[in-house]
């Protein structure tokens, strides 16, 4: 089974990389990009029966730094 974890900087935390991407899009001529936030997607290949609670624990302990990052877990088939 698979799980997908999306880690994003929390709202209110300055994202210098997202700002740089936004600025680059603007200079390329793409108009109307009001904001860019950059995060990461982590795909986990898990033993059958792994619970969402276990994946949440992985997020809390390693995959996200909850001081500045939020995460979302999607359990797949």
């Amino acid at each position, binding site marked *: 089974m698979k799980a997908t974890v999306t880690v994003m900087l929390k709202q209110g*935390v*300055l994202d*210098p*990389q997202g700002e*740089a991407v936004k600025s680059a899009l603007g200079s390329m001529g793409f108009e109307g990009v009001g904001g860019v936030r950059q995060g990461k997607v982590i795909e986990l290949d898990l033993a059958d029966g792994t619970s969402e609670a276990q994946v949440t624990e992985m997020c809390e*302990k*390693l*995959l996200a*730094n909850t*001081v*500045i990052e939020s995460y979302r877990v999607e359990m797949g088939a």
Partner: protein
Amino acid sequence: MKAAVVQFPGSNCDRDMAVGFRHAGFDASLVWHKETALPEGVDVVGVPGGFSYGDYLRCGAIAAQSPIMRAVKDFAAKGGHVLGVCNGFQVLCETQMLPGVLMRNAGLKFVCRSEPLEVATADSPFTNDYSAGQGIDVPIAHHDGNYQIDDEGLTALRSEDRIAFTYRDNPNGSRADIAGVLSANRRVLGMMPHPERAIEDAQGGADGASLFAALAGALVAA
């Protein structure tokens, strides 16, 4: 006096830090990250700069989970002294031995230069050879040194006098110009600037030597 400097895959300031300790009279050894215990009788642990585990996931995140860091955390919990520099500061934040987090530099560039700092407190075993408000020059070399902490955390650092060093010309966007912070018991110091790169004049300045000397003095007195 014995110092142990931790080596992760990707550490690159480990030997320099050991030299810094030796200059101040420590018997310094290197400890591999897979070890589960520190050498017998260690007085201080150094967590060096570099790019542990290639900075994968987040700077310091994977090193923070290594076997030796469990031992370092226990050592600090029992009152041991720990110095984390650059990547070592990132590792100490990731283990939550120090508060806050180090993010990508606000200017997005890797900054490598000698940096004017201010000693924010002389009340610690690391800084008591300096005087509060003193200006010193110490090299920095980092891409992720932008120290961030929430309002509550910053208030606590200020009220407990736990900001060790500040930048005079903030190079990375750090909140409140913070370059280094102390733990609540003042025995764990994390800092982005590299005192081990400023221990003799041949390196362009020796302002970092006093930090190692202060630590040696504090441990002899203890």
